[in-house]
């Protein structure tokens, strides 16, 4: 790696960290400005999430769907298609697996039941992700707009499926019947009470990282995203590769929804989409499209989310302010100009130093 490259990659990491620090500082300033007991609230926001094994467990529990959705968005983001349909898929796959689990009933053992449900979830994801992808490919329709509109449709569709085919009218709130015990995934690690989906998340991170960095498809995908013209020039079909990446991303989002549903709930009861898709985008941006870094981004996001929840329950501060912070993080990291002057200065200095050393050597040589 040349000096310039080294400076560039170090600066990327520094930039991300500085962006995070600024956003976190903004969060603290907001908290400080609006609460009546600012010192206590800020302390709660920073330390609260780590104060008990249960809360640490809930950070990890929250990081699991963020990781899986982050991986899903990595596929979209890697090929530069902001197909935001994972947001809807997350909800719909939870709905379809509940439906299938209820239809299959109590007869099946978990070892048969769970694989069937995951296949259903993946199929749901692939089918839904196919719609914006094919619309772009065949009709040149904007994938962002189509996927957002589709998310609205999906939310109504999932609620309709729940209300008209599997609503349990014996309970006071609107929810489905309870899914069979064989479809419920157990909590593990006792005190921390972590959902067993963590195993799925770890396997998924390893598998997707291998796919991205150890297979030719992963290499093609990254090339298409970074430099579509070059990819075209070396004979890759950018359209087909980004199409395939979007379908895989959809399947991944299906796994995310299914894991969340079976690991954390016994009834399907969402009435709107859950923001997990957008959180996944943030995680993918934080991880710079690198699947191996996705869990770190996910844990960071989960940590500030749980912090916001703690603050919400101890003080009277709505957790919505976190979405503002999330927006600021994406903006700072996405803005190429952010800290570019520092980067250029460093590169310039390094080059100057190299030049000076070369000259010195030359002088020494001529002197000798």
């Amino acid at each position, binding site marked *: 790696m040349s000096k310039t490259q080294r400076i560039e990659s170090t600066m990327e990491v520094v930039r991300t960290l500085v962006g995070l620090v600024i956003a976190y500082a903004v969060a603290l300033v907001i908290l400080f400005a609006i609460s009546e007991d600012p010192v206590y609230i800020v302390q709660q926001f920073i330390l609260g999430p780590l104060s008990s094994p249960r809360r640490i467990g809930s950070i990890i529990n929250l990081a699991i769907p963020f990781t899986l959705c982050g991986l899903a968005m990595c596929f979209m983001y890697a090929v530069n298609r902001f197909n935001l349909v994972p947001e809807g898929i997350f909800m719909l796959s939870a709905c379809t697996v509940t439906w299938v689990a209820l239809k299959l009933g109590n007869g099946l053992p978990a070892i048969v039941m769970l694989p069937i449900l995951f296949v259903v979830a993946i199929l749901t994801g692939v089918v839904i992700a196919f719609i914006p992808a094919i619309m772009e490919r*065949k009709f040149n329709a*904007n994938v*962002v707009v189509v996927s957002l509109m589709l998310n609205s449709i999906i939310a109504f569709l999932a609620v309709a499926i729940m209300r008209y085919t599997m609503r349990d009218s014996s309970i006071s709130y609107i929810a489905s019947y309870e899914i069979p015990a064989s479809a419920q995934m157990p909590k593990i690690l006792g005190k921390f009470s972590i959902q067993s989906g963590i195993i799925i998340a770890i396997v998924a991170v390893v598998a997707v990282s291998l796919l991205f960095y150890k297979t030719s498809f992963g290499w093609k995908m990254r090339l298409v995203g970074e430099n579509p013209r070059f990819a075209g020039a070396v004979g890759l079909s950018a359209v087909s590769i980004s199409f395939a990446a979007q379908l895989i991303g959809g399947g991944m989002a299906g796994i995310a929804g299914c894991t969340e549903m079976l690991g954390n709930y016994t009834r399907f009861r969402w009435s709107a989409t859950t923001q997990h898709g957008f959180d996944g985008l943030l995680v993918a941006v934080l991880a710079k499209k690198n699947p191996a870094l996705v869990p770190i981004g996910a844990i960071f996001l989960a940590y500030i989310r749980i912090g916001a929840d703690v603050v919400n329950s101890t003080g009277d501060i*709505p957790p919505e302010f976190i*979405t503002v912070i999330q927006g600021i993080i994406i*903006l700072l990291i996405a803005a*190429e100009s952010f800290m570019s002057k520092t980067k250029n200065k460093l590169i310039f200095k390094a080059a100057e130093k190299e030049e000076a050393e070369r000259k010195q050597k030359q002088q020494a040589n001529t002197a000798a």
Partner: protein
Amino acid sequence: MTIDWIAFAAEVIRMATPLVFAAMAALICRQAGMFNMGIEGMILCSALAAATFAHLFQNVWIGLLGAILIGLLTGLLIAFVSITGKADLYLTCIAFNLASTGGTVFLMFMMTGEKSTTSGAFRSFQIPTIDIPLIKDIPVLGRIISGQSLLTYVAILSIFLMWLLLKRTRLGLRIRAVGENPHAAESVGISVPKVGYISFSICGIMSGLAGAFLSMSWVTYFMRNMANGRGYIGLSAQNMANGEPIGSSIAALFFGFCQALSITMKNQTNFPTEFLEMIPYAATIIALGVTGMLAIRKRRKVESGQAAAKEE
């Protein structure tokens, strides 16, 4: 099932008003070569600003001004991040929309202690409706065209202003030149960033008007997520007509029709509401598909025509 068709037609125009503004906002950026999805969040912020400013100053016009101002500022913010900050415009807009969805709820809660609407805490203000003399006396037409909100007529006016701006002024020519080919425009001395900022400002004003209509005409308070995809629908309307003001407004009117249909059927029939709610969104997707298909077919025809001409 009996539907009052005259009231329905008036409802179509009412629902189309914010969509026309959104489409105008989208098309000015599109003409400058930028696909601005942030309109959704800009409308949302302006809607909250309209309700807040009107309440603070107890004056409906200051509410309107506040909405336009916030629309303008948010537009400039997106312009700053994407043009000066060189961030990817899609990512900027997604981040901005995300932040404004949560941020408006957060601000509303800080001001009113409510998280769903401001209807309890803020006094409601409504932009006056206008009865057009003569036309209001025509039987059916009078009930449809007359008696709409002032902003509806502003929306109609804005279509022609936008057309004039783009087709008959020096600025419009510059905007289109930048949209067509920024490098060529730059080479003849047009400042591309400046044109970008100007387009975003006009876009902001239009989004501000859309927001003001939502919280001071459509209803008289702010609700969480009240833009509800209108920004995206405006973008699609503009997309269907290739950024032409008049065509885009016709598309916006079509989407207004779909929304009115969904609302009217929900109130007057007992069809499952979930499926009725889907209508505007499904219509958008289908419309994008159909116009895309037509555009591709047309291009193919042109290309095959050129090929045939070469052979001769």
